[in-house]
């Protein structure tokens, strides 16, 4: 089973749910941290790092000695990453989407494959949890190719848990598509609810079953409960708003380490997801 954990709003507890769930199950779990812009799962799982790999994207490299300045490369490029002007061809590789169109259209074979570093994939082990996370290079704009790379580590057997980035646009969609069940983590505040509604629409667009984990459940107002009820979205788990939980989090401690009695809650959460997957 592939279980993804998302939320519209940031800071609602995605990583908390993902790491605690993975660690509470006491069975082999693969956790993929797809929040490649700001990966945090490793802070809580403190894995022993087993592998690091640089991830690159294909970009064009022009051999001007073979170029006849026909301009076909610049014409096909939708992203202005390659431009032929007068007697020169220039590339702006940071804008390249790696479609290879320029290489395909070049009549003289003057364009070959070079690469741009997107970031790094890091793998590690923490107890029974195998963690894979991506770390986008600072200054790199495109996170989806990096997310795709992390998602190549999905296991077809056993359980894979995916920690998605916040929001509702392409990086989130890339993270949660082709997963079996989505947990949307939110808090019962007006911002939390607004973003939950957006996230729910996105998950529905992908046609994946989903439920809610309500973090800091006793703060804010009761509109999130009402929304969930009206929409028929199950609330799978509620986590109380306790200063001790926030303090443990601040130090990078897992909730189930600081409060072992919460382990059963996460085990039940997993049970709820499995039950509702189909």
């Amino acid at each position, binding site marked *: 089973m592939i279980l993804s954990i998302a939320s519209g709003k940031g800071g609602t507890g995605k990583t908390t749910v993902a790491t605690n769930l993975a660690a509470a199950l006491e069975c082999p779990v693969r956790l993929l941290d797809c929040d490649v812009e700001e990966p945090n799962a490793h802070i809580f799982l403190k894995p022993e790092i087993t592998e690091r790999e640089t991830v690159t994207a294909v970009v064009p490299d022009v051999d001007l000695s073979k170029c006849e300045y026909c301009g076909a490369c*610049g014409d096909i490029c939708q*992203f*202005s*990453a390659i*431009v032929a*002007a*007068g007697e020169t061809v*220039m590339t702006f590789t*940071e804008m390249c989407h790696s479609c290879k169109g320029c290489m395909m259209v070049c009549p003289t074979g003057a364009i070959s494959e070079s690469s741009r570093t997107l970031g790094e994939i890091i793998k590690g082990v923490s107890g029974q949890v195998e963690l894979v996370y991506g770390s986008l290079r600072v200054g790199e*704009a495109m996170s989806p190719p990096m997310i795709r790379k992390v998602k190549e580590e999905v296991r077809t057997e056993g359980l894979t848990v995916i920690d998605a980035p916040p929001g509702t646009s392409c990086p989130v969609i890339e993270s949660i598509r082709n997963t079996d069940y989505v947990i949307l983590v939110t808090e019962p505040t007006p911002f939390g609810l607004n973003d939950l509604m957006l996230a729910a629409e996105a998950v529905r667009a992908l046609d994946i079953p989903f439920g809610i984990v309500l973090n800091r459940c006793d703060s804010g107002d009761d509109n999130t409960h009402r929304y969930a009820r009206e929409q028929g979205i199950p609330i799978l788990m509620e986590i109380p708003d306790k200063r001790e939980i926030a303090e443990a989090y601040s130090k990078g401690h897992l909730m189930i380490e600081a409060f072992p009695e919460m382990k059963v809650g996460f085990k039940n959460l997993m049970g709820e997801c499995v039950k509702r997957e189909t």
Partner: protein
Amino acid sequence: MKLAITSDGTTLSSETDPRFGRAAYFILADPDTLEYEVIENRQNINLPQGAGIQAARTIVNACADALITGNCGPKAFTVLQKAGIEVLPGAKGKVEDVIEQYKKGAFTPAKSANVDGHWV
């Protein structure tokens, strides 16, 4: 000698356009004879990204020797520089007045882009 000037209209009495990539028109003028032609930039204005780069390409392909505009971003500047076109930023007022100022040597070629790109 061909001078390209970003303009919001199609005559020498039009106002210069401070934008480069998303300027309405380019006026390509001979400063001595004041003969000119107009190049529309409509195809670039609505580009989702890279308008500056594409506008620079238009200027290069029009065989201009120098470009007078308000602001020029880094990528467009790179393209123009590589093609050997002088970038003269700081244009204000009517196109014809700017040509006069140019002839008096009022513009200094930029050594780098004078504004940040809109997109990285």
